[in-house]
């Protein structure tokens, strides 16, 4: 077990506009007038050295360890590959009730959006992650718990990877 854990995070935003030229196969892309450049921020989130379980990252899910499974491991047809398949039905990333310190989710799909609720299964899915996009945020430290985060696909299905860390 480590002595401490943290997550360094960074945001980078590029608003652009693209003008179709006389020859329609050619476009001229420039920064939008405001901000006329890029935007961004960075920070460090301190998270608990002892996380709620191996599933705090999708890369080392408890399903990867046969000795932690209740099933007979020899009968499992596949192993955990670090990627969660989503459908249009809400999925809870964890049932842990600790305060959420930091979450990162990336939509690994190529077609459909991933929708994220911070208010439970029936909450508002106001965060949209387009294909190959990601989102990260720090929790408020009191109200937002790890088990408040639900994800689903907007249509059909998609896949995600994630970190969900407790305070």
């Amino acid at each position, binding site marked *: 077990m480590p002595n401490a854990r943290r997550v360094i995070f960074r945001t980078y935003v590029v608003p652009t506009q693209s003008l179709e030229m006389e020859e329609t196969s050619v476009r001229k892309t420039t920064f939008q007038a405001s901000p006329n450049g890029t935007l961004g921020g960075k920070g460090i989130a301190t998270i608990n050295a002892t996380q709620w379980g191996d599933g705090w990252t999708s890369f080392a899910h408890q399903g990867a360890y046969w000795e932690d499974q209740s099933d007979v491991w020899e009968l499992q047809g596949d192993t955990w590959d670090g990627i969660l398949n989503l459908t249009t039905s809400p999925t809870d990333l964890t049932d842990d009730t600790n305060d959420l310190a930091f979450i990162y989710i990336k939509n690994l799909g190529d077609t459909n959006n991933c929708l994220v609720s911070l208010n439970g299964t029936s909450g508002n899915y106001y965060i*949209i992650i387009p294909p190959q996009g990601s989102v990260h945020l720090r929790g408020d*430290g009191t109200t937002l718990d790890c088990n408040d985060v639900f994800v689903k696909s907007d249509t059909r299905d998609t896949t995600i990877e994630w970190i969900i860390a407790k305070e």
Partner: protein
Amino acid sequence: MATTYKVRYKNHCTPQEQIASGGRYYLDSDCGRKLTGDANTSATLSATGTLTTGVAISGITEIVTAGSNADFVYVKNTGSEDVLVTLDNSNYLILLSEGEAFASEIHVDSNVKVKPVSSASTIEHFSET
């Protein structure tokens, strides 16, 4: 000659672990790599956004009004005191400390507001429809 508008955004993070107190941090062995996403908003944007800077936050401040149909929001804490962000007008669940930013494509029904945790701060924000 149609003009199209896009917002390309990246949210990047590096999980780290410290083995001994006072020692250096290494890439977290539970993750094994740095993580990043890179995408354009999936919604079709119809106009340019506007960056607003130096917004003093002493109480609740609305940055995306209900019914504005915004598709993307960026908010950065440019002050020294923590602020909280809500996407739904009531649940202030996202914390931003000095220099930190939140950027995401959002549902058109979102109503984004910011308030200070304790003392006043300042923010900059950008949204696009």
